[in-house]
């Protein structure tokens, strides 16, 4: 993943967090987003991370990181204790998609989900050319990707409708991290949603 995009993604999320709010970042990696939300927004944050390297890096950043596997749900986290539960660029790597979305909105009042849009025109072009796409937001070869699921803005929104999740806001970015306003399912590389019940 490249820095400018990551910042664009985080810029949006940071803008949605109010001072003093409680944030749970699922798959928090090295804790960069949480660090930023704590320092810039005065948030109170916890992260969940599976990988050893991420846990170590987050501890070094003084982040409240909890080593654990999202696939096992969020047992132990109380209902409605976080203002925002963030799942940044991770939903496509999760096997239990519906369960994790439901869990996010059980423990949090709002779910913030970002994911790469498989319908992005460059991805479509790659498949038209007979190859799986490798891009800024899908940076892996097919044989070593952590991604399990590929889906589009339209796919995700129909799942939200099925699960009766309310889409409070949607922002779509292109590969350079610019906001996309026209034809988002075609021109957008990364989507960021705020979901509620």
């Amino acid at each position, binding site marked *: 993943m490249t820095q400018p995009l990551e910042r664009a993604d985080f810029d949006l999320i940071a803008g949605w967090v109010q001072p003093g709010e409680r944030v749970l970042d699922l798959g928090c990696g090295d804790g960069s987003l949480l660090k930023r939300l704590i320092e810039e927004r005065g948030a109170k944050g916890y992260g969940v991370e599976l990988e*050893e390297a991420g*846990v*170590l890096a987050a*501890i*070094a950043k*003084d*982040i409240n990181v*909890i080593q*654990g596997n999202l696939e096992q749900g969020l047992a*132990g986290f109380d209902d409605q204790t976080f203002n925002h539960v963030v799942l940044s660029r991770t939903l496509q790597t999760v096997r239990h998609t519906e369960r994790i979305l439901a869990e996010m909105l059980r423990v949090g009042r709002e779910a913030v989900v970002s994911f790469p849009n498989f319908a992005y025109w460059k991805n479509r072009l790659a498949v038209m050319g007979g190859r799986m796409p490798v891009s800024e937001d899908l940076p892996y070869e097919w044989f070593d990707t952590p991604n399990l699921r590929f889906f589009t803005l339209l796919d995700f929104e129909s799942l939200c409708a099925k699960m009766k999740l309310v889409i409070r806001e949607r922002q779509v970015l292109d590969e350079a991290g610019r906001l996309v306003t026209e034809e988002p399912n075609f021109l957008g590389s990364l989507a960021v949603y705020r979901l509620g019940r």
Partner: protein
Amino acid sequence: MSGVGLVSAQIAHFTQPLALKGGGLLPAFDLVYETYGTLNAAKSNAILVCHALSGHHHVAGHTEGNPANIGWWDNIVGPGRPLDTERFFIVGVNNLGGCHGSTGPASTNPATGKPWGADFPVVTVEDWVDAQARLADHLGIGAWAAVMGGSLGGMQALQWTLSFPDRVRHALVIAAAPKLSAENIAFNDVARQAILTDPDFHGGHFYEHGVRPVRGLRLARMLGHITYLSDDQMAEKFGRRLRTGAGSYGFDVEFEIESYLRYQGDKFAGVFDANTYLRMTKALDYFDPAQDFDDDLARALARARAKFLVVAFSTDWRFSPERSREIVHALVHNGQAVAYAEIDSAHGHDSFLMDEPHYHAVVDTYLKRVKL
């Protein structure tokens, strides 16, 4: 190689009586302790290391004339090690009721002039922490940079944050639990029964009879040892391997695991005090900070001011990761600062004593961010 080199123990005498949770006063007492590193001018770099069931004050280094007598947590303490003695002042202490120099059942009861034996009071984790606070006063340490321990030591670290919230800045709670399960207590009681029913126990007054309940202690340790290891580790280390000459369909030592357990049992029974073992396991059984809060651990922990590092090990079935997560989730519920690492390890409960690279990296990384 020990990291801190030659060390020697010191004794602190306390003449102010100590009120015990179980009732009664201990009129005066001694604590034996060791220190490693240097206390800084601000006295802000001290770490207390609390020991587990059979541990003591000799945490690191080796003792005079005995290079093999290396401290039980030497692999984590020393220059450049996670508990870096270039930066921190480390204190190890033998708890009250212990058998390594601190006042305990084998000490002389001033009321009778004879060993306390069975009359030595049952001491709790809270009592230990109170006694350790006296030691902190004695050393001029207002607040610990960290209090740390594994297993029963982790419970002490947790209790420190509750008994003295303003005197501990970080608590490292490793391979611990917020209270024992019925199964844990059951194991402890079988161990105690082995001791209590040993004909040489004499109701705890065996000192006067010139004997020791060695058989009971040995059985207690063998049972304990099984619970500290993991099934995988035992399979890997011993499997079903037989000793040479085995196969007699008798009851001599035939399997390697039998040999190992008997060796561990004998070694332990040769040095440990039966009355101490009874009291240490009781302290484990009684520990339950949530008891006074309608079993609501979050409410119990709410008064803690420390930041926490909680560490559990994947193959620890005595205090499984689920038990550590109870502590973590109570802290998260309260919005308290906590990091939690679940270490993939093959060594069961004993993992906290092992040289596990990721575990040591977690402790090292956590302590590096501790401000002095």
